[in-house]
């Protein structure tokens, strides 16, 4: 029997909002992929973008991808969590409106105002452009970020409210009574546990993010007010690291919900599962110093903490999810289609993508690899082949129809192209990083250009395959709207 995408707890308004979220996610994703392709074509010497425009595009690409990762991930989380708690879909709609306003502000600031400080807006760069962009452009960019952050904060608070109301506290929805043996009741389902983790860490990240954005805005308006750049960098990386990590924890809920429907085997929250999520909730908040390993004035203990906990943070949730997925699928007679195929690609991308990330979080490696293309290599790995396929799988899943095939031949061909070209694309980043090619350079030396050219070809193929996935979603959106 085909999995049933009907979700009785989702009303029409919620379905419309989810559909709008996913449509925006898909379209912005394609646009950002196109922008990324332009960057690689420029480095390959096949396109002559001026450096100013290159860095503007790089900023737009970075912030845009983080934004749609969060929007797509939040859609997955909201959709499935609605089975267990009652959510106010008006909040999700408000988030979309704030997101779109923020995107317009950022696009205006970057492409018209010329802001090009990267998505990390590292202090004091927004205020010190050497005349490349004005104060207003920086203020509009930061204001847009603030607005988008407010939207996601509202989503987190609404989900947190629902979890507290239904379970009597986030500790309970994280499964602490069952984990610590004070309750024999059934533990909360995996979706609830994962959502709780996301709410906790994302709320803290967004509060910190708002603080540093406001401080940066004050610095823009009153340049004599200067904050400690190291403090600013710590806060920014706490916010940025936690936020982008949380997006994959939102999207992985698709694995917990869809695979059991495909295999007709429940995914239960064991004590190991609960322990893994509790451990990651704590560790993801404190490992961000691995981004600052070359800031040699950082206290030594933070560096050690950043390295050691980077090893331990990634694995608990990864192992329980990876092994859980294998166990649930093994000899289950699962039917392989676009949804299950994309989910398994996502599991591979997430698990394999963590390896170069952990390698780079090792101090002795980081001293060589820092700010090389190895870094975009690792995060493109688990975003392009991990998180994004989870969102694509969700798009196929929610628009599935009982009377119609979930996937056609051309879908399956597109998936193969996406896997092969996606791998090729990220391997080019990693390989170039291994040869110390620096990241964020608009112009590359002739010795590096071959990697860029190969990466550009792979990027075109990825874009074509992703375009097909998004197009398939858009033409089938009425099914999602009619499913209620």
């Amino acid at each position: 029997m085909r999995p049933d995408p009907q979700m009785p707890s989702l009303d029409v308004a919620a379905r419309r909002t989810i559909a709008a979220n996913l449509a925006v996610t898909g379209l912005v994703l394609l646009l950002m992929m196109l922008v990324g392709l332009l960057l690689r074509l420029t480095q390959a010497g096949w396109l002559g973008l001026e450096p100013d425009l290159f860095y503007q595009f790089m900023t737009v690409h970075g912030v845009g991808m983080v934004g749609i990762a969060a929007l797509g991930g939040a859609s997955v989380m909201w959709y499935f969590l609605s089975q267990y708690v009652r959510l106010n879909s008006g909040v999700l709609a408000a988030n979309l409106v704030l997101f779109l306003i923020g995107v317009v502000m950022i696009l205006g600031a970057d492409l018209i105002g010329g802001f090009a400080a990267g998505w990390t807006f590292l202090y004091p760069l927004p205020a010190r452009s050497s005349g490349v962009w004005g104060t207003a452009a920086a203020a509009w960019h930061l204001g847009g970020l603030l607005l988008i952050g407010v939207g996601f904060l509202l989503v987190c608070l609404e989900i947190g409210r629902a979890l507290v109301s239904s379970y009597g506290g986030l500790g309970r929805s994280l499964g602490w009574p069952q984990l610590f043996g004070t309750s024999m009741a059934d533990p909360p389902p995996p979706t609830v546990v994962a959502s709780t983790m996301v709410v906790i860490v994302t709320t803290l990240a967004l509060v910190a993010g708002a603080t540093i954005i406001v401080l940066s805005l004050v610095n823009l308006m009153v340049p004599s007010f200067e904050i400690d750049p190291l403090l600013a960098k710590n806060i920014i990386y706490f916010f940025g690291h936690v936020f982008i990590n949380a997006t994959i924890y939102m999207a992985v809920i698709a694995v917990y919900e869809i695979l059991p429907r495909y295999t007709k085997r429940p995914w239960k929250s064991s004590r190991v599962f609960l322990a893994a999520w509790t451990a990651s909730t704590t560790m993801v908040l404190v490992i961000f110093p691995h981004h600052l390993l070359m800031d040699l004035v950082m206290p030594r203990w933070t560096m050690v903490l950043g390295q050691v906990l980077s090893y331990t943070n990634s694995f608990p949730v990864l192992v329980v999810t990876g092994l859980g997925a294998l166990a649930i699928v093994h000899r289950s007679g699962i039917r392989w289609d676009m949804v299950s195929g994309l989910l398994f690609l996502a599991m591979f991308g997430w698990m394999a993508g963590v390896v170069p990330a952990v390698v780079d979080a090792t101090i002795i490696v980081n001293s060589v690899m820092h700010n090389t293309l190895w870094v975009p290599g690792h995060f493109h790995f688990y975003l392009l082949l991990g998180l994004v396929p989870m969102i694509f799988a969700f798009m196929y899943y929610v628009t599935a129809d009982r009377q119609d095939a979930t996937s056609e031949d051309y879908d399956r061909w597109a998936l193969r192209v996406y896997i092969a070209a996606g791998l090729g694309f990220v391997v080019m980043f990693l390989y170039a990083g291994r040869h110390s090619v620096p990241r964020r350079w608009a112009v590359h030396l002739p010795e590096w250009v071959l990697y860029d050219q190969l990466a550009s070809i792979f990027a075109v193929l990825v874009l074509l395959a992703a375009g097909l996935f998004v197009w398939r979603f858009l033409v089938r959106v009425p099914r999602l709207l009619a499913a209620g």
Partner: protein
Amino acid sequence: MMRRYGAALATVLLVIAVVPPLSAWWEASLVRHLLLQVPMLVLAGLIFGSLLARRSRFLPGSGQMEGVAAVLLAAFCLAFWMLPRWLDAAVADPRVDAAKAGSLVLLAGLPLGWGWSRLRPVARAFIWANAVSMLAAMGVLYLTFPDRLCNNYLASEQPELGRALLGLALVLGLAGAARAMLDGRTRPGDPLAGGH
């Protein structure tokens, strides 16, 4: 309990905050001024506001918007009195000082107490998150601003206030997080609470 003692408590807070020579003692230090006298005035108004809110009835569906309007008014009033220039002026000019006391009670505390109970949990949580974030930002501002901000206070008091504000942000953040983590109560009566 609240009805019986609330008004008395608010009156006592008001008296302690504004009656000389205590008022001069609060205002003699930047930290005492901003973190003790101002909160006492707001708290006094907040108690009065919540007492008024209990007695009043509001139209169905209008509560949330009334709450938002009231809390916004309070936020703007508080933002005004966060400006060092006006804290300084309140020390130097009794008329500004009176305006400060009056506005913090009537335009910050009162609407906050009135509006808080009308706000939905998400709006309250948003205010909490915003307060934590802005206290931290203010703390860093006071901690690092290189110039003397007030004529009536020493420059050395600014980092003291900055540290106190950062500490307050931390306490407020931990208190909110602890409450959410360890709430212990389900709310079957919550119209938006789902079963599981």
